[in-house]
């Protein structure tokens, strides 16, 4: 990539991330609302496990799931479906008419989204730890951080892959995202060990970065919890591989779908 192209990419990324981060700061209510929402979901599963008579380590499992779920939702609604909203608002055509690559917008959205989601997720995590008195192993925290970053890389990569669909499709794609949100969240093992899905479903679930990422984080931070899919080292490597594959597919998909959308006059078609 030439210097000029790189600078354009970075400037676009910075500008879009700025909007996402500072735009959110002007809407203070989301902080309380989204933290409470995450906390209540966490509480639901923790009390469910207590009803089912499982061990206390399941609380740690749920709290970690509660920490990751906002990122999953941000990837789905803040990145994957974002181009649908940009199209509806009339921004997509202005973005495409500019020389900035679409990938830069999406990476900017991802960076901004991840940064603002971090605040929310940390608040949910600390709330969960304090209220439900969950214990985590602090010794493996640096490794946990590394695994977390690798998981994010892979998750947002997948989000960008799906975002390309919205260059061509409209409400049908948005509805599909809405349809798969809950099942995907469930299959990713956000609130239960993915190991219990069985081999068949696990094969599909493993393509969702959150599945392996959460499993790896649980191994590192809740060592008393021994139900795992694979060793966390293997899971991290798979996540890195997935992230690179998603990045490659995203790059190809954005170009390819944009061409198709320009050919079929779908780029500026609103209210599909």
């Amino acid at each position, binding site marked *: 990539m030439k210097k000029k192209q790189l600078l354009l990419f970075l400037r676009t990324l910075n500008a879009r991330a700025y909007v996402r981060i500072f735009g959110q700061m002007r809407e203070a209510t989301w902080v309380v*609302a989204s933290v409470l929402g995450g906390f*209540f979901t966490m509480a639901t599963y923790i009390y469910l496990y207590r*009803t*089912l008579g499982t061990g206390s380590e399941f609380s740690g499992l749920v709290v970690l799931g509660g920490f990751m779920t906002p990122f999953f939702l941000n990837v789905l609604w803040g990145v994957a479906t974002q181009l649908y909203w940009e199209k509806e608002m009339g921004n997509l055509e202005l973005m495409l008419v500019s020389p900035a690559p679409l990938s830069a917008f999406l990476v900017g959205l991802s960076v901004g989204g991840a940064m603002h989601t971090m605040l929310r997720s940390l608040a949910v995590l600390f709330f969960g730890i304090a209220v439900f008195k969950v214990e985590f192993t602090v010794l493996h925290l640096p490794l946990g951080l590394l695994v977390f970053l690798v998981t994010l890389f892979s998750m947002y990569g997948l989000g960008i892959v799906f975002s390309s669909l919205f260059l061509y499709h409209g409400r049908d794609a948005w509805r599909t995202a809405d349809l798969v*949100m809950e099942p995907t969240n469930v299959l990713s093992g956000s609130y239960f060990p993915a190991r*219990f899905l069985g081999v068949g479903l696990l094969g599909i679930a493993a393509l969702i970065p959150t599945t392996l990422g959460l499993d790896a984080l649980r191994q590192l931070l809740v060592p008393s919890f021994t139900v795992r899919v694979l060793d966390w080292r293997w899971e991290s490597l798979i996540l890195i591989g997935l992230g690179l594959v998603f990045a490659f597919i995203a790059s190809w998909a954005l170009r390819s779908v944009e061409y198709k959308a320009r050919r079929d006059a779908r780029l500026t078609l609103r209210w599909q």
Partner: protein
Amino acid sequence: MKGFLASMYVGLQIESNWTKKWVWVLYLAAYPIGSFLAVIILYGVFGQKTGLLPYALYGTIFYYSLSMVFFDMAFSVHDDREHYQTLKYIFLSSTSYRTYLCGRAATRYLIALAGIVINLCWLVPALRLPFHPNWGYLIAGTVLGYLVAAGLGLAMASVFLLTIKLDIDVVDALFGGMFVLSGALFPPTAFPAVFAEIAEFVPMSPFIELMRRAVSGKVLTSFLSDMSTFQLLGRVALSAAVLFALGSVLVSFGSRQAQRKGYIDVTTAF
């Protein structure tokens, strides 16, 4: 009445005209699965001995029907104002905004119920769920459930009318809290005593328990077991009346205030 029916039609078009009819039918059948998939997995793996699967599954399914109404009403304000930018035209029309919201939500409720019925057709035999419906309680409960959810939805819509910077996460948070306490997924006996007491007074709790009994033909846990089914019906009717009246007043107030503050046609996208 015309306005209500027209709103129902608008709701149906918004929900369905993005794809072919047969695809949409598949979609409405598949949509509720996300709401009970976790229940089946968790109770299937960990809760077989508890025998609580029917309790949790019926509870989650009927909570889902209410949540569709609640979310649709709250989100409609946001959607009509920011996305379709038609909120001002609805206000200018002769149909009250309350009627419009209720019409849209009624369609959503019927679609949710259709999805529930389709899924119960395979869930009941596949999971051997108790199924001895009392049609009288079922029909009455269905109608009253709509009014309970509509009342809550109207109240939430009034909040969205009064603020332009409120994120839809507020609805998530509120409904999430009620879901935990409602006893939909597990009996509230798991909570500390004070929260277990509060759970009995969450608006959805009596409705969900009523519908469980109406479908299964029995009392599945000790939650609200001190009340007969008829008493539950009375309580749901009272909740429906109070909530719907309160929601109507709030949304009328919210509409007037929104007009006064110029919030009818403002956008806040980022």
